[in-house]
């Protein structure tokens, strides 16, 4: 009896075969928008270093309809990144307190609290 194991090919569209893989791909692509926004910030830093006129031009550009539309897309994906990142943190960093594991939800809640705190601090610093 001869053996002839059959090898099934993995298609490039493997991630479309199940909802969990599609969600994974969306999760990973949040980094594209985070990266693009960082590029916007880098442009901002350059304009800041070039003086008032350059800075005001930068502010006008990102406040344009196109600028806002782009940033709203970035904001959506950035929030999805935060939500998924916090949800995964307890798995990567389980905490023990007095020989008992800290419930994952506590670790997640602490991250949301930090998120709120940082956001408030930044908003206050920006002059809200």
């Amino acid at each position: 009896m001869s053996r002839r194991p059959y090898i099934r090919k993995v298609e490039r569209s493997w991630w479309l075969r199940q909802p969990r893989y599609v969600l994974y791909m969306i999760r990973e692509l949040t980094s594209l928008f985070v990266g693009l926004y960082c590029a916007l910030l880098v442009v901002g830093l350059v304009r800041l270093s070039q003086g008032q006129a350059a800075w005001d031009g930068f502010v006008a550009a990102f406040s344009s309809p196109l600028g806002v539309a782009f940033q709203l897309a970035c904001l959506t994906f950035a929030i999805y990144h935060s939500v998924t990142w916090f949800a995964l943190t307890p798995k990567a960093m389980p905490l023990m307190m007095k020989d008992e594991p800290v419930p994952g939800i506590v670790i997640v809640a602490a991250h949301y609290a930090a998120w709120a705190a940082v956001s408030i601090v930044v908003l206050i610093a920006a002059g809200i």
Partner: protein
Amino acid sequence: MSETITLEVLRYHPETDSEPHFQRYTVPYRDDWVVLDALNHVKDHLDATLSYRWSCHMAVCGSCGMTINNEPKLSCHTFLRDYRGGVIRVEPLDHFPIERDLVIVMDSFMDKLSSVKPWLIPRQDRPLSAGEYLQKPGELQAFHQYTQCINCLLCYAACPQIGLNEDFVGPAALALAHRYNLDSRDGGKDARAEVVASNQGIWECTFVGACSEVCPKQVDPAAAIQQTKISASVDWLKDLLTPGAHR
């Protein structure tokens, strides 16, 4: 005429088939039947040539892993009643070569498993006269969930990185390495790191998390791998800053 349900099963006989193909069987529907019962019915009454692995029929041996309606499942743990009125597609586990019908070639996994040195490596040699290791309940709890793996390979079938790179050491093997690394009796983390912290080890993982979702024993291999990434990174930093000091 009592109720029936249809199975669509992937068949492959290397002596006659150039490619796998589906074959349908109509089996009795019973509320308390699992897919394995339906397959046993096929083999006993309809088609004795069907080959598949199974043993305990109670989700502890890990033998009966299959792809059922596109999802890696244990056939003994998958109830017909959840597919009532539909067709149940039964295929071999993804990402493994098909030996025959629903039987896959799992040699690669056996090699990966042994490559992570899944045994206690003591920090120091202990003579028998030193007695047993003492372990507190908290120390056992630290690694207990990672002992629950039944080597069913559902995680390898679910893992896209295994699909893209068959040399990836994979979820179950890395979870087992983590089980030993976390064991208070063990001192073998460095010995395992050659494989675990290699490019084919933890670093192929992108935390898809599908492995943990399909695991029938809640081992959570994804968590094991992420925790190992952190500890391997800390070791890497220690090595960088104080070469050779902590070995």
